[in-house]
């Protein structure tokens, strides 16, 4: 069973040949995004790899501080410019590196350099020549994420592999529309948190609150009006923030958004257990809907909006979200309406179902907020 050992200390100095290695091998993360003729992105290297490349630990105390990283910024930028080449067609792109920042990854701090490059005309293909750390640590690899026109390619760079060439597709606006519509539907159906929030607000739509008790609505019209108001308010609100975030007008940190989304579910669900807002729940839907929009936006940000089809893609994604949402409402609400006068619905689903949702959301909240 000795994958990990094979110890010997015979005449040689060698101790052992471990197989069960720990620690992630040395990876650099190169992410590039292409918008027509413009190229932007970032390169991330472990601080330790930055030290190996240019020597960051000026005082030689075995620690690299933020001050030392900043002092090494020019050396780092020059090193990267000398070891990373981007070519559109036959010509090198003019590359510029911005000020260094820090990014936390699971295996420690990474230095983060923003990249912008101009490659002449509209790019049909991109070649990447990645030689970072090829002398210092031949096992280093560059993990490339290349996004162009909403399509994402990945590749492993470095090592013995030579110049790598990537063909860039330019999909039709219609193709982008379908792709983003699908992504929107998929996101709402798989992202159970948005649905639970909406359901928490819709569960009481078929009921009336009278003298601290839930009563069934007698006719369909008010229930229908309740549902329409909540769904419309939610849709309107998240469409606003989704659009603002998609066009980079406002950005919220992902963890904050995710935490508050979890919190919104708790609030909405608890409102069914300890009713406070019994009329006009659409206001809750609107207020928190604004935050859910930022959640949708983070998905969209991961996909990227294709140049030339930004608006179409945004509309398609939003339409996808609404379609998925509507499908769930149509599936659930008639059932809720039929069951509305049963004790099962009023004293079972309302308090206990809502409590369960609140409990689940609390777990999410703790996970997201406390990391």
């Amino acid at each position: 069973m000795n994958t990990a050992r094979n110890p010997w200390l015979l005449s040689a100095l060698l101790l052992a040949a471990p197989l069960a290695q720990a620690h992630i091998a040395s990876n650099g993360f190169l992410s590039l995004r292409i918008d027509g003729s413009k190229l932007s992105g970032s390169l991330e290297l472990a601080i330790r790899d930055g030290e190996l490349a240019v020597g960051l630990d000026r005082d030689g105390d075995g620690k690299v501080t933020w001050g030392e990283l900043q002092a090494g910024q020019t050396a780092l930028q020059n090193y990267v410019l000398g070891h990373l080449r981007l070519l559109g067609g036959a010509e090198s792109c003019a590359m510029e590196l911005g000020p260094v920042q820090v990014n936390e990854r699971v295996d420690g701090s990474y230095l983060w350099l923003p990249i912008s490059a101009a490659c002449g005309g509209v790019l049909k293909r991109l070649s990447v020549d990645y030689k970072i750390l090829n002398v210092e640590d031949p096992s280093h690899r560059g993990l490339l994420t290349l996004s162009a026109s909403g399509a994402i390619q990945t590749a492993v760079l470095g090592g013995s592999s030579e110049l790598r060439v990537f063909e860039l597709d330019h999909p039709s606006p219609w193709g982008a529309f379908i792709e983003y519509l699908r992504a929107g539907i998929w996101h709402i159906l798989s992202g159970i948190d948005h649905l639970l929030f909406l359901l928490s607000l819709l569960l009481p739509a078929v009921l009336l609150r009278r003298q601290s008790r839930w009563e069934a609505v007698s006719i369909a019209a008010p229930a229908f009006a309740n549902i329409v108001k909540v769904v419309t308010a939610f849709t309107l609100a998240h469409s606003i923030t989704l659009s603002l975030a998609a066009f980079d007008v406002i950005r919220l940190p992902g963890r904050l958004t995710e935490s508050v989304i979890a919190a919104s579910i708790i609030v909405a669900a608890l409102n069914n257990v300890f009713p406070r807002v019994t009329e006009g729940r659409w206001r809750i839907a609107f207020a928190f809907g604004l935050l859910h929009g930022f959640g949708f936006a983070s998905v969209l940000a991961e996909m990227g909006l294709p140049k030339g089809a930004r608006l179409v893609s945004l509309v398609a994604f939003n339409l996808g979200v609404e379609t998925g949402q509507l499908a769930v409402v149509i599936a659930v609400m008639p059932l809720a309406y039929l069951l509305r006068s049963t004790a099962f619905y009023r004293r079972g689903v309302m308090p206990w179902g809502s409590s369960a949702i609140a409990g689940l959301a609390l777990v999410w909240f703790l996970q997201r907020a406390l990391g």
Partner: protein
Amino acid sequence: MSSGMGRPRVQQGRLFTLGAVVLLCAALQKAHGGPYMPSSDSAVLAELPAGAHYADVSARRLAAGRVDVAIPLAQFYIQQSRLRGDLRYLGYAQAVLAPWVQQKSPMPDVLVLQATLQQSRHEFSASLAMLERALSVSPRNPQALLIQATVLRVLGRYPEAGAACDQFSRIVESRLGALCIQSLRGLNGHLESAYAALLQISPQGWLSSEKSWWYSELGEMAVRLGRDDEAQRWFQQDLSLVPSDFYVRGAYADLLLRQGRAGEALQLLQGQESFEPLLLRIAIAQRQMHDPRLAQSSARLKAAFAAEEQRGEAVHRRELAIFLLEVEGQPTQSLATALKNWAVQREPDDMLVLVSAAKAAGNPAAAQPALDFMRTQGLSDVRVNVLSGAAVASR
């Protein structure tokens, strides 16, 4: 009337407080998740381990011209890689060896070091080819023979591994030769007698690394014999001698976890989170104990496996299969990974995860090739017997 008004107000108050606390927490929590500029110049971003300084790069340049510098330096890096469980050192060693391996007729020592590197990266056939080259020049090279025995053993090629051990035992001190031979006999049909033979060895005068090898073989044999108390003693002795032996620490943790002693396992693994194979055991223990820190451990492991996957490497396939089975609860995916792993690696632990995953996935027949291998080789392992017996019964 007043009580009728009072109750809802209390409820409203409760809801309000809760909402306020929740929103406050949300607002206060650090919102990293992206690049940032630390607020203080003296914020420490990373600590550099030995050999990872810029200055060391110039030592490596020196090694490019002098093999008497290159060999000890590569040995140092490989040693560091083992002690710290850090893959980067293998890259440093590779950098040092590269110019010497590319020579027309490299020195045997260089070839053996290169083979060691390749073995560490699970590039088994490349490693064996390199050892063949070394042994064709220097047939009585003990390191080459021992690595050869180890690689062949991992691959489940026991007769060839036995031949390498025989060669090895002719060159080295007889007790070390016996250790190589008996460890192998313990896998192919003679577990009881091999364990007894190892117990006869007196470790007097051995270096701690040699003792550690002895302890770990004894511990693993005891595990396969089902003598968990004895195994625990061997593992403890090894760890008191070589606390940095993360391999034995992992085997010991496995034993504790199998016995449902997750709390003790966590204690044993405290402070070892930076070693992914040990972090895997931590995650399993956390799952058994419903520890909320599981989410964090699991996220780190996922990222590590994903990075490896993206690099197209398969160093930790066994660990990935265990992770999918024990932490993620995805037996079908675990089985697929365990099968891929089994196609390459054939150690008892590789078999164990395959049989467990096959059983959990409701597809015990998938483990049949492994069980056949076990039967034909005479491999004996109580842990596998318990599982496969149950698997057969459930069919």
